[in-house]
Structures are given as C-alpha cells and as structure tokens.
C-alpha cells in the first residue's frame, strides 16, 4: 500500500517536471500510459492528489488522474465535487496537451455528463461541454464524440439556442458513425423545438440517408420524425428515398413506420376530418413514440396547406369563402390564420377589413437591390468552396481500392473502342 502511494508520489513529481514543452509531453504521455493500471488501482485515494497539480499547466497529467478518479462508481456527494473539478479543468486546460490524449478527455467528459444527469441539473453541464467541444475540435468542420453529448444536455435542459449555435457549422469530417447519427438526430430535435423546420428536415434526412450496413434504431426514429416534419414544412412527403441511401435503409425503414405512412396518405387528400380520424386511430402508437405533439402540428399545418392551395386558384376571396373551403369555424378564424401566414412569410396577401376580402399577391421580390447581390454572391462563394471539396472527394474515391476492384470486375471482356482485353480483376 505504501509502495503504491510512493509510486503515486513519484508520478506526481514526474508530471510536474515533464510538462514543459512538446518533447517532454510526449515522454510524459508514454509514461502515463504505462502507469494507467496503477492509477486505476489507486482511484479512491487519488482525490487529494488533484490539489497538488495545476490544471492549466499540467493538463495531461491532471487529465489522466481525473480519468482514474472517476472511473470507479462515485456516491452522489462526491459527484458534486467531481462536477466542479471537471468543470474547472475544462475551462482552464491547455488545448495542445489534451489533444495528445483525446480518448481520455472524451471519457472524462462523458462521465461529467453522467454525473450532471445524476444530479438532475443538466444545465450545469451545458457551458463546460461547449468549451470542451471547442477545445477538442481540430477545426470547426470536425465532428467529435462530444457533439451529441452536448446536444443531449441542451435538449434536456431546454437550452435550445446554445445548441443551435453548434448546428450552424458545416460538418465535413466524422470520426465515428454513431456520433453522426446521434448528432443529426438530436440536432433535428433541437431545430424542431425552435421551429426551424427546414434545418430539422435537413438533419433528419442526413440520419436516414447516412451509410449503414444494418438498420439502426436511431435511423428508424429519425425516419418517423422526418415524415412528420416534411408534412409540416413542405406539405408533402415522397416515399422514395434518394439513391445515396444505403440499401439496408431502403428496404427496411418503411416496415417500421406504417402508421406514419397512413398519415401521409390521409394528409394528401386534404380532408381535415379524414386526417383527424386517422390520428385518432393511431394515437397510442404516436404516443409511445413521443410524437403526438408533432402530429398535432401536422394537423394544424393542413389548414395552411389548404389556404395556400387557394392562392393558386383565386385572386381575391372573401374571408367567409376561405372559412368554408378550408372547413374553419368562421371568418374570424380564417382571418387569424391568414394573418399568421402573412407574418411567417408563407403567403403574400392583403386583407381588406371593410368588406372582408383577401387579395392574393405575387412575391414582391424584384431582385434589383444590392442586398440581393450580396446574398447571391455569398451563396456563390459557399458553393465554390463546396465544389472544390466535392471534386477532391471524387478524386479520392476514384483512387479507392475497393472502388477500383469492383469497377474493374463489372466491365465487359472486350472494350468496344480498341478491342483490347480489359483487365477484369485488380490485384491490389
């Protein structure tokens, strides 16, 4: 026992000595890796050791000891202490040092999240995890394992706006596929919460079409929500999945979401009573999936769709007529709906209150202002960057051995153009 404590002391001394520059840090990291088991064995007694180290200077060593401390199950009171320790550590740690041991950092943050949830105070974890995420990311285009954890905390603590700030970044690199699924799913939920349905649709679509060799439960849930959000935002849903969806998804997703597809069919008829009947019949299934709120939004969006359909037929309409054709209760309700739609930008119209007539207008955007030029210009810049990335990926794909092997196999034996034998198999 004493021997072990002595080794811990020597370890602490090592950490304090070797935290100078990058060469020493590499040395320290190998040393710490060897001493990992020792640390785990000593975990209950390591808490006071933390006070001897300075987290901003000895970040790597502090990280290892923190990881060892929290690896054992901790009772609730100690959890509070640890939460404070970890939060402080995340705020002051040195970025280069923790990037040397990313898995340890991720596991520490995960335990932090568990502790915070254990204490039933998720909002405490939001800010530290945001800092941790930013420190771990190599570039703003990289997805780390901390992203979905952070989004989960945002969801549980209802801090949707902070979550949205992370969702603004475009992601181009992913470490683990499961991270991507969870990130897009939680992100979709946050966007639904903030009523940003377009972005929610995009994120949920990403989950559904992501490459997967076997169907995943996250994708099934995402598909159900995708159907509902698509009905709310676009007013329609196409059951065909795009060709970049994995074949596992294409075959199996529909089987798991039967009640939702029935809902789609009822929606497209445009009949409110049919839709409500359909909702009633499948109510328990929607409840078990926690989607009942969304389903109610779908029902209210049907009114909007029907009014929008009226703009394509009529130039002017009275409020009474609108109420009748959309099966609303009276002209007052119709006026409310139309007003709301004008405010949200779904429709362009003017209401004449004297005689209760609504005149439908065209989109007033003339495309002759300087702001529009800037807007289009920034879109062009973005698409140029995207195009460069795509051509890079395309070239990488052409050199991929898996692709070359399969492509060579599919060619016919003789090339029409030069009557040469075509290599049918690539030994790479």
């Amino acid at each position, binding site marked *: 026992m004493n021997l072990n404590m002595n080794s811990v002391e020597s370890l602490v001394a090592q950490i304090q000595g070797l935290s100078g520059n990058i060469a020493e840090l590499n040395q320290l990291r190998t040393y710490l890796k060897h001493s990992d088991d020792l640390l785990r064995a000593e975990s209950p007694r390591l808490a006071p050791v933390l006070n001897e180290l300075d987290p901003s200077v000895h970040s790597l060593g502090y990280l290892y000891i923190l990881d060892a401390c929290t690896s054992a199950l901790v009772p609730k009171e100690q959890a509070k202490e640890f939460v404070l320790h970890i939060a402080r550590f995340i705020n002051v740690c040195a970025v280069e040092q923790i990037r040397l041991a990313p898995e340890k950092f991720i596991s520490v943050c995960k335990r932090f999240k568990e502790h915070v949830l254990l204490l039933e105070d998720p909002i405490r974890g939001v800010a530290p995890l945001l800092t941790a995420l930013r420190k771990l990311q190599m570039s703003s285009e990289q997805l780390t394992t901390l992203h979905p954890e952070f989004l989960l905390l945002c969801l549980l603590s209802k801090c949707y706006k902070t979550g949205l700030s992370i969702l603004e970044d475009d992601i181009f690199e992913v470490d683990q596929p499961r991270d991507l699924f969870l990130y897009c799913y939680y992100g979709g939920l946050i966007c639904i919460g903030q009523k940003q349905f377009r972005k929610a649709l995009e994120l949920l679509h990403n989950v559904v079409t992501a*490459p997967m*060799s076997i169907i995943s439960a996250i994708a099934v849930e995402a598909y159900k929500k995708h159907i509902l959000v698509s009905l709310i935002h676009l007013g329609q849903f196409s059951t065909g999945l795009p*060709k*970049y969806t*994995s*074949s596992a998804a294409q075959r199996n997703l529909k089987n798991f979401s039967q009640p939702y597809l029935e809902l789609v069919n009822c929606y497209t008829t445009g009949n409110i009573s049919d839709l409500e009947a359909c909702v009633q019949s499948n109510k328990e299934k929607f409840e078990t999936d926690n989607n009942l709120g969304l389903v109610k939004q779908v029902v209210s969006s049907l009114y909007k769709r029907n009014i929008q359909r009226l703009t394509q037929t009529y130039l002017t309409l009275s409020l009474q007529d609108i109420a009748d054709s959309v099966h609303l209760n009276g002209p007052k309700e119709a006026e409310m709906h139309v007003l709301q739609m004008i405010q949200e930008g779904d429709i362009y119209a003017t209401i004449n209150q004297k005689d209760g007539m609504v005149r439908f207008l065209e989109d007033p955007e*003339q*495309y*002759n*202002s*300087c702001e*529009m*030029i800037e807007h*289009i*210009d920034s*879109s*062009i810049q973005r*698409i*140029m960057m*995207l*195009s460069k990335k*795509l*051509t890079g*990926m*395309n070239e990488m*794909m*052409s050199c*991929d051995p*898996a*692709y070359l092997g*399969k*492509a*060579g196999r*599919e*060619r*016919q034996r003789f090339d029409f153009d030069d009557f040469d034998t075509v290599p049918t198999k690539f030994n790479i």
Partner: protein
Amino acid sequence: MASSSSSGLTFKLHPLVIVNISDHYTRVKSQSLPTNGGADESSPRVFGCVIGVQRGRTVEIFNSFELLYEPSAHSLDRPFLEKKQELYKKVFPNFYILGWYSTGSDAQESDMIIHKALMDINESPVYVLLNPSINPAQKDLPVTIYESELHVIDGIPQLIFVRASYTIETVEAERISVDHVAHLKPSDGGSAATQLAAHLTGIHSAIKMLNSRIRVLHHYLLAMQKGDIPCENSLLRQVSSLLRRLPAIESEKFQDDFLMDYNDTLLISYLAMFTNCSSTMNELVDKFNTAYDRHSRRGGRTAFI
C-alpha cells in the same frame, strides 16, 4: 557606339516591319537543326532590307523583305536584292530602300561593313535591330533604329552607329491584324469554354491595366494635394475633364434595370455552379455505391473513371 542621333530626322515604324522581322527570325530558328548550333551562338542572325518613303525630314518605314547573308564576305546577296527591289518597285512605286535590318542584342562592328555596302543605294541607310531574347520585365519594344554618323575619334573620321528615336505608325488594316495576332486563340478552335476564358482573360487584363493607371494618377494627385509636387494646372484640367465624362447615365430607372441585370447574371452563374456540383455529387454517389454498397445494381457497362 550608340549615342543620340543628331540628324533631326523623325522615324516612323510600321508594325508590319516588326512582325516580318520577328517572323523571319522565328522561322529560321525553328528550322535550324539542334545539333548545328554548337559553334554559333544559340540565336541565329537574320538579315533583310527595309523599304519605305522619305518625305522631307520624316522617314516612314513601311515594309521589309528578307535577304541572304554571306558570312565569309560580310555582305548581303546583291543580285537578289536588286531583283527584289525591281519587283517591289512595280507594286509600290513610291517605296525606296531605306536601309536594312538584323537581329541581335546590340549593333556589332561587322554590321558597319554591310551598312557601308548599302550606302550606294541610299546615302544614309537606317539599321533596324530587333532583340529576340524575351525579357518579361521589359516594357518597351525590343526594336532599335540606328543611323550612321561621321564622328572624329582619335583624329580619324569614322562612321559609327547612333541611336535614333522612332514612333510606331499604323494604318487601319495593320491595327486590326496586330489586334488579331495579340489575341491568338488556342489551336483547337476552342470549345465555348476556352473562347469564353480567352475573352474574359482579355477583359481582365484590360481592367487590370486601367486600374493600375488610375492608381498612378490617384497617387500623383494625392502627392500634389499634400504638396510634395508642385501644382500643375494643365494636368489638373485634363484630369477634371476625364472625370466629367463619367458617369454616362445616372437615373433611378437605370439603377434598377442595371441591378436586375446584374442579379440575373449572378443567378445564372449560380445555377451553372449548382448543376456542376450536382453532377460531381452524382458521380461520387455512384462510385460510393459501387464500392461500398453490397447490394447495388449490377450488370451493364459502367464507366471506368
């Protein structure tokens, strides 16, 4: 050997002469066998005659033709020259042989022999020298015109070459052809893309030149305002008249239409980029499916890239 000419003659050079000399040189250089260039200098010298009109104090050089050079005798092929002269006289009765041309970086001693030989045709021939080495930093044309003058050096009267200044004079036909040569398109005729690229490059370089010149003027005016340079009123008047020529149209209707047109062009290029991206994305998805999706559609001929 080269100092300023004091004869008081003004020289006008037509671009046809420059193009002729350059063409002659390029032809000879590309036809010369690569193994032969051991002893000689890497750039062969070409020779020829320049013809034109001399009216009073103005010497206008219109055209040129090639001549053969005898390196042993340091002389040009005389009978050939006379035959050519007769032929040209029939077509252009006004043109006289004004002198001769050659290529090189500087006038040489042996050139004086040729020069003196030509003096029986023309009392004071001119010598046009083209420097074929390409110097990207050089802004002026690498063409120099030399005259001969009798100077007393070390007590001996000698003919030496002196530099003369010249201007470039163009006829309308020459201007069009020079413009055409300057904008040589790629040899495959060009698809629409290469032609568009060439057109836009031309516009880009024109705008760049305009920009640099305006910047020079701006700098000059700033310095004048600060007081570093004495105020020059005639220049200021010229600048002011230049500025008053812009803008051509200024009205709200014009602004609206102009912005709408601009937006339309931007939208079209945006659409083109979108299509390009979608096509790349489509290829990428196809490749990905072939490589990684176990049950993708098989059969048929797929493109191999």
